[in-house]
């Protein structure tokens, strides 16, 4: 057979030839498109800044999380306390900085739980279809019937308050949306010809799911997760606002707004500052999600 004879030159041709050729993988393209989107860059910068603030909070914040400047309660913004102090004399700016830890952690951890459950349920329902799909879809529908906030409240009631329970409560509730998206995407991808080709050359179900189906869902997962993080942050803030989430003295933007409500007359701005921090964070993640969707999956772009 003529093919074997040419073995060595084929190999050498391969190395010097293939190396030189520039290739753009899918994610290179996506990054290039993302860089062109100025808003996305700003949001990326804001999100990065938030993460740094959250990690290095103890060094950045002017005061300890629960340091009380006794006798200086509800002070207006001054040089010592840039945003003034709360009813216990604690520095509002420092508590907002520490509060960013809670919000970002909830965004990441809760969303990770939601993505994990959603991906598993969605992939199985989508791939196997038939009865499995019917049962899982009903389960998705059941969990989606509870308003997000209420279900989280009940979960908190059962688990008790505390930061870890907040993550679980929001994560356990938020997976239905992603499950539905993944399920419909897997159903579409299942019919693609490259999946049939894999099956025709002997690919097993698991190999097909992990080599073909999940990689092609990745961009959807990233987009949906990035869009869900802001709502997770809002749910945490709401829970804390209702006094069911993070308990004092730990700082959370939601609980700060709730505390501030009692002192509207003396110091109205007290409740405005944590609100602004919350809005900036949620806005940054939201716009980043939009930009990622446009960069990763041009077809999803709503022109």
């Amino acid at each position, binding site marked *: 057979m003529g093919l074997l004879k040419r073995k060595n030159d084929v190999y050498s041709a391969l190395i010097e030839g293939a190396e030189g050729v520039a290739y753009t993988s899918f994610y290179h393209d996506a990054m290039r498109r993302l860089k062109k989107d100025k808003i996305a860059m700003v949001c990326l910068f804001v999100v990065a800044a938030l993460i740094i603030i959250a990690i290095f909070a103890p060094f950045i914040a002017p005061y300890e999380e629960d340091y009380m400047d006794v006798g200086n309660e509800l002070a207006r913004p001054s040089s010592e306390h840039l945003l003034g102090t709360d009813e216990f004399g604690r520095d509002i700016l420092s508590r907002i900085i520490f509060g960013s830890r809670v919000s970002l952690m909830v965004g990441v951890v809760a969303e990770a739980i939601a993505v994990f459950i959603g991906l598993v349920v969605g992939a199985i329902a989508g791939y196997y279809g038939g009865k499995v799909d019917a049962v899982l879809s*009903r*389960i998705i*529908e*059941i*969990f989606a*019937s*509870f*308003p*997000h*906030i*209420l*279900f989280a*409240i*009940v*979960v908190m*009631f*059962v688990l008790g308050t505390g930061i870890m329970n907040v993550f679980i409560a929001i994560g356990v509730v938020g997976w239905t949306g992603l499950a539905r998206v993944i399920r419909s995407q897997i159903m579409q991808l299942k019919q693609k010809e490259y999946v049939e080709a894999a099956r025709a050359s002997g690919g097993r179900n698991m190999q097909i799911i992990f080599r073909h189906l999940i990689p092609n869902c990745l961009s959807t997962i990233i987009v949906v997760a990035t869009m869900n993080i*802001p709502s997770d942050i*809002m749910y945490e*803030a*709401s829970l804390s*606002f*209702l*006094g*069911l989430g993070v308990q004092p003295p730990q700082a959370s933007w939601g609980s700060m*707004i*709730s505390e*501030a*409500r009692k002192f*509207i*007359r003396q110091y*109205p701005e007290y*409740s*405005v500052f944590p*609100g602004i921090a*919350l*809005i900036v964070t*949620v*806005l940054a993640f*939201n*716009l980043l999600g*939009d930009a990622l969707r446009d960069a990763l999956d041009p077809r999803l772009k*709503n*022109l």
Partner: protein
Amino acid sequence: MIKYTVKRLLQTLIVLFGVSLVTFVMLNIAPGDPVGVMLAKRADQETIDRVRHEMGLDKPYTEQFIEFIRGAVVGDFGDSYFQHKPVSEILAGAFRITASLGVWVMLFSIVLGLLFGISAAVLHGRIGDKIIILISTLGMVMPSFWIAIILQIVLGVKFKLLPISGLQSMSSYILPTISLGLIYAASIARLCRTNMLDALNQDYVRTARAKGVSEFKIVMQHGLKNAAIPIITYIGILIKSILGGSVLVETVFSIPGLGKTMVDAITQRDIRLIQGCTIYIAVVFVVANLTIDLLYGLLDPRIRVTQEG
């Protein structure tokens, strides 16, 4: 069409059963000793056992569940331990209040949402579109409880224009409606814009243009009728979010609706009331979703008129 309806009815029954099962398990089985949690150790073991017996919690779970279902079907969720009144009575009153607020919030968000959404799609590519996108994104990120407080401070306290609590007079509806409705108006605007743009890029719009149909009619007839279908399905989700969101707004404006009842029940640890409230809200959503799905079938001929054999 009938087949579609029957199938949906069957699915809804299963979901309702699932909802009651999940709620029952979470509140009665998960926390181990519900009465202990309820009395929060304020009573000695002897009273706890007596209360447990009174509420029938010492029976095996399956029996409790059957009793619970039989009651729920008839609308009887047992009695609230602290208010000594049937839960269903409390919920009915609270629901009327939340519903009345909910209707206004829905109207506000749908009207505003469609207005912004359609105009954004029509002004696509121009400044107007960009401004509306910005406003709607901002609207989506405003936490409802935060806006509620800001409105309370500015309009209520500073300028004393509007009442800042309760739902006695018509004007007292304005602040809660705006603070809860803003988020949903923004999401409807975005959804409507995306669907309109999608519809306006379909081949049949190009055909309509080739017929000489005016842009206005293309948007209003061809575009809207196709874009309306996904928007109507969103209204189902809207009802659920309003039921959820009302918890916050009712707390800020101290409106004794379902949301506030739920929060108070949680803080008082009134298990029966919490259970009744959760089921009640979920049922309202499921029923609303069902009606919308059937409406959806009527509007979309592809479902109403099945393919001939």
